[in-house]
């Protein structure tokens, strides 16, 4: 928005970063904004570690024979990739970083309802992460991120217990974040900020928090039971005494399917904000988009069985799960259609955040539609445990969740740091990520459809061309992830300040200084209007008072 740049805004004298910088001022801070930064550091470390594992996977799969590492090591590498990325990057990424930073500001509050619990959640997360990292250092585990019994409880070697307890502990950080968000959204809204005046980012986080509260404890007790079984060599999933390993799968997916929506719903919230801001329009069908978030959260709890079509669950259960899985496509499609309708006839500004949001819409649509394919019983039996599944969930997780996270990070970076990043490089890297991502994962749809199973370190030679394409794409994707690290960090040294509202966006967060003061608002805001009330060209021309 060039018009805003002309006035050469100055950095505010006092803000949340300008206070004391000694270690305890950061490590014992109760400011939600600083805790958001702490989380950003945490998830970046685990993303880098998980990414390193991905590099090893794609290097191994560049050739048909398992020549880089033995099968056993490969099992550990893909397990650690999954564990780190799912539990320590994707789940906390948007809620704990952007949600933490923005949610109180968006609702006009000084902080989250429980600042100490917020800080505690970061420590719990880091302790869980440290245990998992220790598990990685001493050799890693080979159970897959799914910890299926009886492999995990009786047969897998390595520090399974350590990693399982690490994941268990990290789960409580997620629960506490959700708890804090729910109470904050219910009790801390500014005067006049009714539920239907909330930004859709807040709705997305509310739906996410519900899943975190109701889903995470189930996987926590499940992991605890696996740990006990491994420790005492007898347990509830132990077939020797009549226990049922399939029960583990039911309990695990009861959380882990909704967990997919923990990763994607905040991302959808980010996209709603970006689309509105860069098309200068109200989000089309606001209430539908808001309730679609809740709908996805509720339906998400009823579809776990679609991970178990081949596990021996009854055909009737499979059919019901298949049907409910189709229903999830409805609220998801509502969102996609409404974003598209919002863009229609909007005053589009092609800034970097919008590039990511558009990438999200396209890639999420592909990920979602292939999800419907996989939710179909007959098709799933054909491609179960193949690269088709791998491609599908990477389209949702990387193409959806990570693009949403990067879009949000670029959108709110000027707010968080008060600095503008390099526009040229940010657009270039958004393009590189989009191209690299598709080159990595689209061939995997074909590989899976042709029958290449997941989780093997070698494959028949006829699959090599597609695998090389995928590995080449991964290299491009890797470069695309490194460039933002460079220009975002470089922007911190930038002398040019972003100003309070570089995008000309509406929303409470853009009405306060960048970076925001510690207490967020000098005077408590009063909200009098719906969100996304951008002035429309025809409204401007209309005579006042008619």
């Amino acid at each position, binding site marked *: 928005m060039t018009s805003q740049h002309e006035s050469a805004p100055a950095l505010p004298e006092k803000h949340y970063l300008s206070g004391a910088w000694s270690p305890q001022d950061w490590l014992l801070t109760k400011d939600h904004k600083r805790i958001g930064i702490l989380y950003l550091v945490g998830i970046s470390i685990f993303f880098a570690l998980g990414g390193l594992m991905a590099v090893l996977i794609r290097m191994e799969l560049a050739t048909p024979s398992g020549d880089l590492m033995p099968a056993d090591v490969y099992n550990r590498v893909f397990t650690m990739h999954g564990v780190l990325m799912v539990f320590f990057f994707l789940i906390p990424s948007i809620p704990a970083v952007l949600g933490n930073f923005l949610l109180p500001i968006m609702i006009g*509050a*000084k*902080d*989250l*309802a*429980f*600042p100490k*619990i917020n800080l505690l959640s970061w420590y719990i997360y880091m302790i869980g992460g440290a245990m998992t990292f220790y598990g990685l250092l001493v050799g890693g585990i080979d159970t897959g991120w799914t910890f299926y019994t009886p492999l995990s409880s009786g047969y897998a070697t390595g520090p399974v217990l350590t990693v399982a307890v690490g994941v268990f502990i990290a789960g409580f950080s997620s*629960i506490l974040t*959700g*708890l*804090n968000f*729910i*109470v*904050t959204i*219910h*009790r*801390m809204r500014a005067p006049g900020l009714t539920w239907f005046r909330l930004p859709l980012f807040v709705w997305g986080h509310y739906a996410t928090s519900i899943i975190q*509260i*109701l*889903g*995470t*404890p*189930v996987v*926590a*007790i*499940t992991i605890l*039971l696996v740990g*006990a079984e491994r420790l*005492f*060599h*007898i*347990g*509830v999933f*132990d077939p*020797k*005494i*009549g*226990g*049922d390993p399939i*029960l583990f799968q039911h*309990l695990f997916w009861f959380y882990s399917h909704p967990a997919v929506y923990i990763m994607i719903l905040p991302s959808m919230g980010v996209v709603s904000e970006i689309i509105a801001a860069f098309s200068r329009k109200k989000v089309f069908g606001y209430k539908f988009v808001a309730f679609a978030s809740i709908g996805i959260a509720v339906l998400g709890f009823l579809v776990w069985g679609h991970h178990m079509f081949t596990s021996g669950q009854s055909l009737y259960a499979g059919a019901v799960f298949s049907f409910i899985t189709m229903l999830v496509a409805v609220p998801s499609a509502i969102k996609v259609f409404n974003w598209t309708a919002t863009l229609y006839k909007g005053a589009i500004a092609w800034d970097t955040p919008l590039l990511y949001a558009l990438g999200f819409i396209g890639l999420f649509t592909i990920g979602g539609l292939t999800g419907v394919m996989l939710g179909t019983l007959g098709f799933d039996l054909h491609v179960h445990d193949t690269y088709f599944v791998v491609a599908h969930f990477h389209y949702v997780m990387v193409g959806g969740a990570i693009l949403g996270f990067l879009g949000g990070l670029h959108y709110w970076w000027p707010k968080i740091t008060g600095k503008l990043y390099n526009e040229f490089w940010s657009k270039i890297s958004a393009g590189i990520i989009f191209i690299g991502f598709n080159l990595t994962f689209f061939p995997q749809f074909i590989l899976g459809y042709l029958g290449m199973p997941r989780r093997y370190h070698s494959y028949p030679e006829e699959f090599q061309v597609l695998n090389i394409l995928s590995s080449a794409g991964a290299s491009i994707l890797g470069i695309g992830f490194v460039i933002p690290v460079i220009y975002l960090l470089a922007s911190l040294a930038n002398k040019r300040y972003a100003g309070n509202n570089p995008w000309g966006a509406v929303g409470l967060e853009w009405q306060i200084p960048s970076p925001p003061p510690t*207490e967020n608002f000098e005077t*408590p805001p009063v909200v009098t209007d719906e969100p996304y009330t951008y002035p429309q060209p025809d409204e401007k021309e209309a005579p006042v008072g008619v």
Partner: protein
Amino acid sequence: MSENSTLAHHFDSYAQQKESASLGMWVFISQEIMFFGGLFLAYTIYRWRFPEAFAYSSNELDIGLGLFNTIVLIGSSLTMALAVRNAALGEKNGTVRNLILTMLLGSVFLVVKGFEYAHKWQHHLIPGPNFQFSGPDPVHAQLFFVLYFSMTGLHALHMIVGLGILAWLTAQAAKGRFTPENHNYVEGVGLYWHFVDIIWIFLFPLLYLFGRHHLT
């Protein structure tokens, strides 16, 4: 805002602070219900699958001690509720006295539970290589005892955590930290304690009382 004010900086009023604390505790309890829920689900499935083994195993539990503990725990919920009322009225001594009584009753429960566990140990009812069970279907009886120890063990763990929190709360109450405007901690711990009590109200019939009438 005065030095001694107990209103946190980010709240506008005591009412808002109180509502937030109370809602926070209810949300926490929701996640606790789901946490125990996994075990209750496992219990339901296995009891339905192995009714005979579960009924005979249930007979091994000491119904007298179970009943005694149930009464003790309900009593502790009463003293806890009284402590919350004392705190709401600003009665420092009453709060402290009732919190101490709650801790005593909670400790009695845990001691009795300890004796029950020791008894199971002596009778080789701990699942594992030394497990011995004279009733029918001894293999699946182990599953009952895995669940018995998991469920009562997790419950006891919640009691132990609760006792720790109560000890801290009593010290705070003795220092006169709680006022009629702000005794949210007492209320919150009270909710937690009642929740732990209710879990036991479900565990007692499910584990101790079932299938007795048509076995003896």
